[in-house]
């Protein structure tokens, strides 16, 4: 069971309080009806499925209820950082350097 830092509660808490919410930074088109089938399919279905640091979303569903973003290494299962929804995606190089 992982420990996850909620950027809203500013606490590091057991994973059971959280729910996974798939890849982050996939914005829904503001005018969906104007998107092409290809663009819509890209938004709806395509995910990066990276081996390594992944930008993803979690929800502190049994706590403050907020959705937030995280960078988690899918190989080591380590969280590199978490940040509030709407904040820009952090630079990966700055995150990995901080690790031992």
């Amino acid at each position: 069971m992982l420990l996850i830092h909620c950027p809203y509660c500013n606490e590091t808490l057991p994973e059971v309080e959280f729910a996974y919410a798939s890849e982050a930074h996939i914005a829904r088109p503001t005018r969906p009806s104007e998107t092409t089938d290809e663009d819509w399919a890209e938004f709806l279905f395509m995910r990066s499925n990276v081996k390594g640091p992944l930008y993803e979303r979690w929800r502190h569903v049994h706590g403050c209820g907020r959705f937030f973003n995280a960078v988690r290494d899918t190989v080591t299962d380590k969280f590199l950082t978490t940040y509030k929804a709407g904040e820009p995606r952090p630079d990966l190089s700055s995150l990995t350097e901080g690790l031992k």
Partner: protein
Amino acid sequence: MSQYRVSGRGRVDTARPVTFTFDGKSYRGAQGDTVASALLANGVHLMGRSFKYHRPRGAIAAGSEEPNALIGTRRGSGRFEPNTRATVQEIWDGLETNSQNKFPSLKFDVGAVNDAAYMLFSAGFYYKTFMWPRSFWDKVYEPFIRAAAGLGVSPIEEDPDTYASRNLHCDVLIVGAGPTGLAAARAAAVEGLRVVLVDENPEAGGTLLSEPQARIDGKAAWDWLAAELEALKALGVKIMTRTTAIAYYHQNMIGLVEKLTDHLPKLPADTPRERLWRVRSKQVVLAQGALEKPLVFHGNDRPGVMLAGSAQTFLNRYGVLVGKRPVILTSHDSAWYAAFDLQDAGAKVQAIVDTRADVDALLQSEARARGIAVKLSHTATATSGRLRVSSLRINPVAGGTVGAAQDIRCDAVLMSGGWTPSLHLFSHTKGSLTWDDDRTTFLPEKTPEDCVIAGASRGLWGIGAALADGAEKGRAVAEALGKTGAQVAYAIEADRPGTGVSHKELPTDLSAGKAKAFVDFQNDVTAKDLRLAVREGMRSIEHVKRYTTNGMATDQGKMSNINGLNIASDALGKKQPQVGLTTFRPPYTPTSFGAFAGYHRGEHFEVTRKTNIDSWAEAKGAVFEPVGQWRRARYFPKPGEDMDTAVRRECAATRASVGIFDASTLGKIEVVGPDAVEFMNRMYTNPWTKLAPGRCRYGLLLGDDGYIRDDGVIGRMTEDRFHVTTTTGGAARVLNMMEDYLQTEWSDLNVWLTSTTEHWSTVALNGPNAAKLLAPFVEGVELTEEAFPHMSCVECTVAGMPARLFRVSFTGEIGFEVNVPAHLGQKLWDILWEAGQQYGITAYGTETMHVLRAEKGYIIVGQDTDGTVTPYDAGMGWAVGKKKPDFVGMRGLARPDLQAKNRKQLVGLLTEDGSKLEEGAQIVFDPKQAIPMTMVGHVTSSYDVGTTDQPIALALVEGGHGKMGETVYIPMPDRTIAAKITATVFVDPENTRLKI
């Protein structure tokens, strides 16, 4: 005093005798004995038969690593457990134990024929033997494998014990309460940290318990230990014994299993048998010590052959001599001390046989001083004896040549092949290992966790080294937690440092092909099996392991891994690190299912949510069904009624007069804010802007893929406030989905969502008399067609209770849903039930609700839809707002595939022969086509207990909306049923019955 008990030795209390049975025979031991130590005190070495060859076996070890001495333990009815290690189970008055894998008796076993048929059972025999012929599988192989598979016999009665679990947070968790762990605990505890020290044994002390000769800080080891434990407790250290760290998970989460009652003669009240602790520790110190390795030679499994260190433990901890004429066979100094201790306790050590040419002179002179013969540069090539070893065959080795054999008469062979650091938990952390050529073993290197490994588990040897390393590592973790960390030094006397070498199988002058030199005792894997596996092409240690099953038994290779690796790498001609070590997997020792289940069994197995009206239904004898986490009344049988009869009655009564239904489980979400209507417009397919306060509408929720996710009636209570209902099972999911869009896509909207599912008890009244029944209780609105038409909602008072009243129908009858604050639900129900008697009011459950709605063609999301159904497929295009700029799923619906003509569409089905279809049955257009037939849909709902004059069904059929009146076929195992495609509404298509 038993024959092999040594007075003045050990920590057991011989003044408190304990009587127990083994295979029906009564034995006497002492308070503090294990089954193994008590049996050994009585001269009993034969404790079991091996798994594959049914060879006679005795205890080889003294602790939890024991592979052989597996027993069944019994405490009266229902309390039977197989595969308990006799070396771990403490005895108590009345304990019943039995040996395993024997038939008909331990001393004469028919299965031992497997031993003679040894060639059949060599490496990979499962893979080779059971391949062919195919026809043998059912009758020959499978029964054989089933009979042979598994150790011991499973209990068949329900476990009457209880199990518990707890979460624990601490600063430093120390695994292993030997000298290393004790020193680490002190170093951390003096800094004021929350320290937890666990040990799997009944008492803390580890090696100190087996080495009473040592002196620490001027005190005898056991005196020092007692004082130190008191001191640690005073410092606030939580010391947990009989507690095994079974697994190490991410971010310093360690699973502990604490055994609370297995050692007690009487079970205390309210006390679980075992407790699983989920520990989250900021820092972890692993101090699990090292495990002794056997030597691999022909006959090394005979009862009486055991590890020298274990013999020393049996003597010093339990006061038991495992033999009176033992011979020592070793490649490590430690066994010499075992020899000295046994000799000093009255045994006549026959010889110390060491594989090495050079052994410390001091040890040799100590042996001579005791009159013990010393044989250096020797190998062991065989043992003899039937159910107990009676001699050891040894040969000198010179220049790689094995010389002439000599037999040494003995009643025990005490062997030591050196020590393996216990790296199990360290490996669970994905810690890397490094090969140490000098010590011929893997040592811990780096771990990604906040964890240090100390003492013998990182290859250090001796009590002095352990104390020093424990103190240093304890200081280091304290420092990592921001403390200064004090240096603690210990003065140690009479320590027993030493060295040794590690071997593959010992050299022999006998035919290697016939040798039964065991590596894995529990799975009966020999050195020959490992070499055969390599000859047959296995290259990776993981393949060798699976081909031979080496290390795959319940002891997880604690003794066999390194010996197996040495042999496999020799056979491969590679260095050990190139061959690799197999993965250590949790749990460290076998763990009961009960410990994992904890409190979650019986009625506490999982959350069962109940409405406030549930107890009324229970009192009325309702039959319940689970819906999500809820239990809901499915039907209310009268005496003698089965489900069909009850549901037929409930359906008829509701259509004829009035039915009452507990709809409290429906999900409810309060949507409040200035942008509430805009949020609803974006979320649901329907247009909401023109819905006036006081009116409600059926809402359809899609995913962005365009498929139906949920539905429900939604009322606009005021301009800025919607009362949304969802399906029972979808409540949490829908709220989560709404929050997701609101928080992450539409943060421009000023609106908030609150779950009110449980704020309201919802009582549904349906039937022609529903309005008549309800009207007298309602204040604030007239229940007339004009004042409160179908699809209205209002805040009012019902029977004096504050209520939200909805006029809706999921049955096709006049319908009301009365919402009152949940704690008033039962009161409202009672009032309506009482008043309804004049109308013959009938309580109905979910089954009747399903039938009545199907007769009206109302879908149930998840039953008539399956995540690939659009509103158009379901015939509900009318619910889709055509003029809205966007809603969730709008763009998805425009995908070409969702516009296709031949999509599966929801239709009604009426069978030609009047039979009832099976839900889930597949549909074809042409029943005469060749198999496999082209399936064009399936039956989603089917009932024959409703108010129609023939069974009805709903189905998804390719292009169904364009095939009204056509015939489709439903092939069943015994016949093919023809059915006509119809509209989905079977009752009152004009909705005349909805009118008051």
